[in-house]
């Protein structure tokens, strides 16, 4: 159950309305096709030989028995890959491992056969022998000078370091009258989209290597496929049908190159479908972080924040060099703190590569900074709402990187609205939390909240571009009749096609049903960048809005059709810059969205089990283009955030092999784990550069959930759980430690 309250804005006809999703009808009819639903006559089936070894040198690879099996068309190894490399930022991964494997999810060979069963049989006949290499699974240990190197030839396992220096943090800590220090850990987490990786490849009518896959960044997939096959990009085509969730996990290459390679080598259509076990083991994960926070206050005001972040990159670089800067840029929260020092590094291990996942580096630090903020409020005897409001950003506040925050700062309003809905009342400048009656079953009730923020769009000087083309059919009076929109914005489930249809409809004065959004085909739809960074509403929305404006400007008597294409480039509108290497000074991001969530929990004092009873979510989205879809995003964000808080952890055994192989072992919340009640509040503080003032929200809505739940657990049972997930055992151990500490007369740990 939810409620939306939005502030009134100037009249719009399509934008701001909860229109039905443009793809919903096909989806309820079962007609929407996902990659595994595509077939071609005469197609073969491909299976992957995965290494299963976390760190080893390949000493032998014998494919003869597999190749000899009747019905097997080809067995491909590294020798069959023209340029055996891929990677989102650096091409440091092998399509098929040639020499050394560095994590269990690396592919060694691809078997192509006439049936799926034959391909499976042949896969099991491929013999690979290995010489084990020393394992490094702990990023802290991986940083030691004598640690075995994951990548020979590199000076150390530390991939990169960043720092921010703002003011004089040591002097401020020395002068502080309250200093609080703590260490927080967040684990390896799985995207767990419901659609396992799948793809169909074929040579199209123009001879192009074509793949039908669920990719979040279609044109970058094409770049990487073309590179690996040593083909010009125009000889490669990617078609993206419906996608069964992504959450960042489809931003990197999974099977795209393997499918393309199979087609390239055999020239027959080839289908590859991964099992859930393959999906879980063989795509990247969310970065685990160790976060050391030492903050100081003087006279009741935060004066110093010293932060150290250590992130686990896993075996390959993926987007780590973009994810960790994101974490650095939000490490002290949306708070004005005059003296800040941040040090961060990202380290190679033999764990799965870590990559984009909802938040892109901004989901981890709030687990630390929002618990830390609560600790200060508690130590100072102030309500957590009042304490936050005294420190949160306003328009023009200066970030630790020295630049002012982008315009449209609704963060305080998200806190006020969420706190009010959760039962707080305002008494002058003070906020007073509600009294919660005890639960009849003896469980302890607690209330907590957390505020967070995230950037929208690419950052640190990267050009965030999106190109949209619109074709508008005009009636005899020159008025738009219907429109077609061409833009390679992958619909991963978040509703981008509906939002862009609404923006186009608004710009053309049409009903949304009269705008057709074409599916992604890299040969027909122009490059819109990735479906990530919560960027499409802002970036692609601007591209569509301008393309519509240009099309309308071309209308002339007698014309029955107009067409326009426009490329939006963030750097021309809201330029960002990269960190100064010494001070970290920069203008990091295009714009921000802000979120506050409150959680009410029940904690069983005997078992440590946590139930989330009720949640409130207030998000500053700039402009709610489709309020109903926002509620859907918020629900999904809570789901993922709640899983992060109390359930989810991708576990490896001590030998580096995977323990959580399917949904029976990797637990995500079910209907019974979700709160009974959700209140959803849209705050609309517009960004003047956003389409109709809109910002974005896809990632934001999962970010404060975990710290809100942790703060509620603290409120319920008086213990801090510094390590996620806060499952029953961890909460129980924290309570036991507090009881033991109290019994020995040392006082309860804060």
């Amino acid at each position: 159950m939810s409620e939306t309250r939005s502030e009134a804005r100037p009249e719009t006809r399509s934008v701001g309305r909860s229109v039905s999703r443009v793809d919903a009808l096909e989806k309820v009819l079962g007609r929407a096709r996902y990659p595994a639903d595509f077939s071609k006559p005469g197609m073969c089936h491909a299976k992957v030989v995965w290494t299963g070894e976390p760190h080893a040198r390949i000493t032998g690879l014998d494919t003869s028995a597999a190749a000899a099996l009747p019905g097997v068309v080809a067995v491909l190894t590294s020798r069959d890959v023209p340029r055996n490399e891929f990677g989102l930022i650096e091409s440091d991964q092998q399509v098929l491992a040639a020499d050394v494997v560095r994590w269990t999810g690396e592919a060694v060979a691809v078997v192509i056969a006439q049936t799926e069963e034959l391909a499976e049989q042949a896969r099991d006949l491929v013999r690979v022998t290995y010489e084990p290499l020393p394992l490094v699974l702990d990023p802290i240990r991986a940083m030691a000078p004598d640690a075995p190197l994951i990548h020979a030839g590199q000076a150390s396992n530390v991939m990169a370091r960043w720092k921010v220096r703002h003011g004089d943090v040591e002097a401020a800590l020395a002068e502080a009258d309250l200093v609080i220090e703590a260490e927080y850990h967040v684990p390896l987490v799985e995207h767990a989209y419901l659609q396992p990786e799948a793809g169909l490849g074929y040579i199209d009518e123009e001879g192009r290597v074509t793949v039908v896959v669920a990719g979040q960044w279609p044109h970058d997939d094409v770049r990487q496929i073309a590179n690996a096959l040593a083909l010009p990009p125009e000889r490669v085509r990617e078609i993206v049908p419906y996608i069964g969730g992504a959450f960042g996990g489809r931003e990197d290459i999974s099977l795209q190159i393997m499918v393309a390679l199979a087609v390239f080598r055999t020239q027959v259509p080839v289908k590859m479908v991964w099992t859930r076990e393959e999906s879980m083991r063989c795509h990247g994960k969310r970065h685990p972080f160790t976060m050391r926070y030492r903050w100081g206050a003087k006279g009741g005001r935060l004066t110093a924040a010293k932060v150290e972040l250590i992130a686990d990159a896993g075996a390959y670089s993926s987007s780590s060099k973009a994810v960790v800067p994101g974490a650095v840029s939000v490490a002290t929260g949306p708070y004005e703190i005059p003296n800040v020092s941040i040090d961060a590094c990202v380290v190679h291990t033999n764990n799965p590569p870590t990559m984009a996942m909802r938040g892109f580096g901004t989901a981890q630090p709030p687990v630390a900074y929002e618990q830390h903020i609560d600790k200060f409020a508690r130590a100072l005897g102030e309500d957590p709402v009042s304490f936050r409001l005294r420190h949160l950003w306003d328009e023009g506040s200066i970030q630790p990187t020295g630049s002012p925050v982008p315009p449209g700062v609704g963060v305080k309003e998200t806190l006020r609205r969420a706190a009010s809905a959760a039962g707080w009342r305002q008494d002058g400048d003070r906020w007073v939390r509600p009294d919660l009656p005890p639960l009849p079953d003896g469980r302890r009730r607690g209330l907590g909240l957390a505020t967070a923020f995230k950037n929208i769009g690419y950052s640190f000087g990267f050009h965030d571009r999106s190109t949209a083309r619109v074709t508008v059919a005009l009636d005899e009076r020159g008025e738009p009749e219907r429109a077609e929109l061409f833009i390679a914005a992958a619909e991963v489930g978040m509703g981008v096609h509906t939002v862009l249809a609404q923006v186009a409809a608004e710009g053309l004065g049409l009903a949304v049903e009269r705008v057709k959004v074409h599916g992604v085909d890299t040969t027909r739809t122009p490059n819109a960048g990735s479906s990530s960074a919560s960027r499409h509403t802002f970036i692609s929305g601007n591209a569509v809005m301008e393309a519509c404006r240009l099309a309308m400007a071309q209308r002339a008597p007698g014309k029955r059709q107009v067409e326009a294409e426009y490329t939006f480039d963030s750097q021309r509108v809201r330029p960002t810059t990269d960190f100064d290497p010494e001070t970290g000074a920069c203008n990091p991001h295009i714009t921000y969205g802000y979120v506050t969530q409150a959680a009410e929990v029940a904690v069983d004092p005997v078992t440590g089990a946590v139930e989330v009873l009720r949640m409130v979510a207030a998000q500053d989205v700039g402009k709610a283009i489709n309020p109903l879809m926002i509620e859907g995003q918020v629900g999904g964000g809570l789901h993922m955030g709640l899983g992060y808080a109390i359930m989810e952890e991708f576990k490896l055994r001590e030998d580096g092999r995977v323990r959580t192989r399917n949904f029976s072992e990797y637990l995500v919340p079910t209907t019974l784990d979700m709160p009974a009640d959700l209140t959803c509040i849209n705050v609309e503080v517009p960004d003047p550069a956003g389409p109709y003032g809109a910002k974005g929200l896809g990632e934001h809505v999962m970010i404060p959930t975990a710290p809100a739940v942790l703060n509620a657990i603290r409120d319920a049972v008086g213990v801090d759980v510094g390590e996620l997930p806060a499952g029953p055992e961890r909460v129980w151990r924290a309570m036991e430690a507090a009881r033991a500490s109290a019994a020995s007369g040392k006082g309860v740990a804060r």
Partner: protein
Amino acid sequence: MDLKEVDVELIVNGRRHKLRVGTNLSLLQVLRDRLGLTGTKEGCAAGDCGTCTVIMDGRAVLSCLVMAFQADGHAITTVEGLAAGKKLHPLQESFLEHGAVQCGYCTPGMLMSAKALLDADPAPDRETIKTAMSGNLCRCTGYFKIIDAVEGAARKIGPASTARGAAAGAATGSSKAGEGR
């Protein structure tokens, strides 16, 4: 490897299909690969996610765990059989109205679990819906809209169309202020 094959007759969405199938094939594989009914999705092939839920003889089953030969002679309903011609099932209408569809991959399984529930209990309360749907995972919605949509469909179907147990149950169902808007 010597795989046995058997003759089966499946009644899917009211149509009879005589097939010779391997004894190692699941109902899910036969629906998708042999009958081309790709509306039913595979999420885990281990009975953990509910994505492949279909209705067999009135009960929601996980088609990845039912072997094709076990379905011999049984009546199966998949998502493709939910609408009556061009007329959407009230559940489909309600999923559209409540915004219960996002990526859509769990949607067919959700619809079939909900149909089995409403066929057996036309006026379930919210807790009953949550329990009945607890075997269907969704990663996009947080389930709120899906539960709202099932409640909404129960109201649409209403007491008139279901003879059994309507009085008390339906009254409870329609008085619940479950729906967001």
